[in-house]
């Protein structure tokens, strides 16, 4: 079936079957391998992407669900060669070990900071608890997000 959607800002067209997930589409048809396939059943968050700015699990989302919508993957959050502030904060805070969960963690954090410029601890844990980290980098992931929150606050002169 025909499918048109925007991926990282570019309008694309595909022909896919009903069983194709958004993760299949990104990894197999678009060579966008930033979204990871780990559990492949909605139980880890490694495949998190933004669909119309909201984090979703690409591994259990039918690609055809995304008709006419906009998908942002980790490859699309900053211009080529540049880093998004959340990516920089993750590096500065050393918020990763193996890195497998990191694209998903970053996208969840990007969406959170779009919703709340200065997220509370409760808002952070609600937004981030759908992303598991087998390496247990949670304290540093939390630190990266909190630093960004307070930096955004300073920049806005609050």
């Amino acid at each position: 079936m025909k499918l048109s959607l925007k991926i990282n800002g570019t309008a694309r067209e595909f022909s896919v079957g009903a069983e194709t997930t958004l993760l299949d589409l990104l990894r197999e048809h678009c060579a966008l391998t930033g979204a990871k396939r780990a559990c492949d059943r909605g139980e880890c968050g490694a495949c998190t992407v933004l669909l119309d700015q909201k984090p979703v699990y690409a591994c259990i989302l039918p690609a055809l669900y995304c008709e006419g919508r906009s998908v942002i993957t980790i490859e699309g959050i900053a211009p080529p060669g540049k880093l998004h502030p959340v990516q920089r904060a993750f590096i500065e805070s050393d918020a990763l070990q193996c890195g497998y969960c990191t694209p998903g963690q970053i996208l969840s954090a990007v969406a959170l900071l779009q919703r709340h410029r200065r997220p509370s601890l409760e808002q952070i844990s609600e937004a981030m608890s759908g992303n598991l980290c087998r390496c247990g980098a949670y304290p540093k992931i939390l630190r990266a997000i909190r630093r960004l929150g307070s930096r955004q606050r300073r920049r806005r002169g609050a």
Partner: protein
Amino acid sequence: MDSLGFHRASSFEEAAGLLHSGAAVLAGGTDLVPLLKDGLVKPSLLVFIGDIPGAASISVTRRGGARIGAAAKLTDIANNPGVRRLFPALAEACRSVGTLQIRNVATLGGNLCQRPRCWYYRSGIACFKSGGESCPARDGLDEALAILGGGPCWAVHPSDPAVALLALDAKITIRRADGSVRETSLADFYCLPSDRLDRETRLDAGEIVERITVPARYAGSPQRYAKVTQRAAWDFALVSAAVVWEKRRFRPRIALGGVAPRPWLLDTARLSDPPVSRRGRDPTAWELWAIRTAEQALRGSRALSSNGYKIELAKNLIRRTLLEWRRV
């Protein structure tokens, strides 16, 4: 799975008309896609209802209650100001589901119709649910199974929102294949394994949930949804409870989750009246009443070899929740 068809429905009428045998409704797919991947369902056609105009609408008024389209997303229900103000038990139940990524896609209709999470069934082990002749969980790892209403299948119903909606006496509007509409209470929507084993609802072939209505009677009444899980996020309820107070008669409607193959409504007639007098509430009398109510609520429950903890957990959860109204 190669020949799996996909149809984007433009109305519920059209969708219901397509639900011949072999077709399945697709809403958010958060339950259906894993079931497809595991080969537990093998439809030939997916009828997608997410793009039906108005299917995701949420309208809430104090006098009219809530009207929620079957394809409304759990995030949108949990964040809806009207739902939060007038039906906080429903907002809390929706917020307690899985994770943000799940709630951003999962719909209310899909949540009510989701299949049981029994580990045996989901692993493809033959059992009553999958057309087999036994219940391996009953004789095996039974700690997640039902303490009420079980047999021959003992898998509990996994939905949180259904428990809140049951306490709120919600109604379900169902569209049939011939285009006609029927309405049923949520209490009559679900059935027990002793009634039927192929599904958990009384939906017939060719029927589709179109809308969920919460009556105005409980709008703004004191209410809560409380859920006990093994881990703080991303988990199904071990036991959950929704308590909704009837405003006029001041009696609680209590529904339990995680304890039975369907969301479980307590028979209010079997519960003692709360100790309220003109002069207000005596905290000690209230506490004694809460303990008594919890005991009455679990009467008739039965433990298997290792799920007895759920009985105590449910009693404590009911008592603890009722204690929140100890003082006016």
